[in-house]
């Protein structure tokens, strides 16, 4: 659906040039939810704007729905943009228009006749759950409602692709989840390809099928969300994954416990997908002469399955512990010994 071939974007600034996007190649499939995560300044805003031609690449090719976005100009570019919806962090609604008029705006641009326009707006209001608020002005809406208007507006011309520019970053956690659920619903119902950029791992975890990690203009890692979670390669990816499943307090709490266990070892067990559902600890205790003490645990649900982390203290004879660890590993559970007091 979307192909980026060695795309580079260089800005000329007063004090030299800045490479915002550095030789990025990506392939985004039809109907998937693709997330791009990175800290601010990583170049993800520029990258997403290359997809609808708001930015032109310095070199490389951007193909969206069979159209080379680097070549099209004028009327054809505007036509192409009508097939790519976009939502924004700060919603960017016209405050002078009501909900209904805001949603009608892209239809006016596309030259849809008035009667058809009204019909389509009604459908969209229904779709995003804004019935009853049609005639409110944006200033009378909550953040979540504003983003719903943004989504309805982006979907008005039946786009093939929806771009989300930090769409939930200005919302509270509860509203974020509601908006993310809506995006998944739209993705399923309309078969829409969604590309989103974010700095929140939570967003990736919750709705993305695949993820790309961006750092100083480059894609440093990409793949299936669950795969990247299980096996992060780059330091930055590890940091993002850690942020999600292992908040700072955990780290503190665990290191505090080191002193309390003069023998045995502390290990971090990472479960992915089906492995998260098995009674692993029971099996270990039954089969090996070890004591298992669960220190902390957490399971997160991703779009593709469960993902869990368990911190345990294992004590017993040296080779018995080793055999237990070996057994755990054979159950497709990643083991990382984080403190060995033996």
């Amino acid at each position: 659906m979307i192909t980026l071939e060695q795309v580079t974007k260089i800005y000329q600034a007063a004090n030299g040039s800045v490479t915002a996007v550095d030789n990025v190649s990506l392939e985004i499939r039809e109907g998937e939810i693709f997330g791009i995560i990175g800290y601010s300044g990583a170049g993800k805003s520029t990258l997403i704007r290359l997809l609808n031609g708001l930015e032109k690449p310095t070199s490389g090719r951007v193909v969206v729905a069979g159209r080379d976005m680097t070549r099209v100009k004028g009327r054809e570019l505007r036509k192409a943009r009508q097939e790519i919806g976009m939502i924004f962090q700060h919603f960017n609604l016209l405050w002078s228009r009501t909900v209904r008029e805001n949603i009608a705006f892209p239809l006016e641009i596309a030259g849809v006749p008035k009667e058809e326009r009204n019909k389509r707006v009604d459908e969209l209001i229904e779709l995003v759950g804004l019935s009853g608020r049609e005639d409110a002005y944006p200033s009378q809406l909550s953040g979540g409602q504003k983003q719903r208007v943004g989504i309805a507006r982006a979907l008005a011309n039946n786009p093939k692709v929806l771009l989300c520019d930090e769409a939930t970053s200005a919302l509270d956690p509860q509203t974020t989840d509601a908006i993310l659920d809506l995006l998944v619903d739209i993705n399923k119902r309309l078969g829409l390809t969604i590309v989103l950029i974010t700095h929140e791992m939570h967003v990736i975890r919750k709705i993305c099928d695949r993820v790309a990690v961006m750092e100083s203009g480059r894609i440093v890692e990409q793949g299936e969300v669950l795969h990247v979670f299980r096996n992060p390669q780059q330091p930055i990816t590890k940091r993002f994954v850690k942020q999600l499943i292992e908040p700072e307090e955990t780290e503190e709490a665990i290191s505090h416990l080191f002193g309390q266990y003069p023998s045995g070892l502390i290990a971090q067990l990472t479960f992915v997908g089906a492995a998260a559902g098995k009674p692993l600890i029971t099996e270990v205790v039954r089969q090996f002469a070890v004591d298992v003490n669960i220190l902390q645990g957490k399971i997160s649900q991703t779009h593709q399955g469960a993902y869990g982390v368990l911190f345990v203290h294992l004590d017993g004879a040296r080779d018995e512990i080793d055999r237990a660890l070996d057994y755990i590993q054979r159950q497709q559970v990643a083991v990382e010994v984080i403190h060995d007091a033996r």
Partner: protein
Amino acid sequence: MLANLLPNVQWETMWAATVETLYMTGVAVAATFVLGIVLGLLLFLTAKGNLWENRFVNTVIAAFVNIFRSIPFIILIILLIPFTTWLVGTMLGANAALPALVIGAAPFYARMVEIALREIDKGVIEAAQAMGASTWTIIWKVLLPESLPALVSGITVTAVSLVSYTAMAGAIGAGGLGDLAYLEGFQRNHNDVTFVATVLVLVIVFVIQLIGDFVTSKIDKR
């Protein structure tokens, strides 16, 4: 009773002068509104980072605006005498005041328009572009509607200035309340005429401000 207090006021003349002032102000406000918006839009659109970014055009318009905004109005009228006589055919009467009024007020208003446009969130313009809007659509459906309250309060301020400009234009024979106050009131030492003319000017100004504030609050949905 009124005739005793204001012995020299001839109400018919006073009324005719008021109509002249209203006429000059009305036409000048309308022309200033249009010309100011065109100039303001050009200033905004050709500025750095905007849709029609063009340094040369921007500099030329900015220079024009700054020059005509800076010339004191009474001097501007005199400087424009050849232009006015060429355009209107005479230097006397209300119509002869119009070119100077518009040329004096439009650059002032253009700056206000520019400021109003700059207040619009860049994100909203970007959103319209992302929807495939053309520049014309963005001007008509985003820039002007989104800045309308500021455009209206700006034209209100400009209209109030225009009322006082018409009084100055009166000094060179344009007619209106200023002319009356100067010729009948000041030069013939009829203080009551000056007084009534002043009160009428104040009433006009208050009414303009009231209408402006009312319209602004009606259209501002922020």
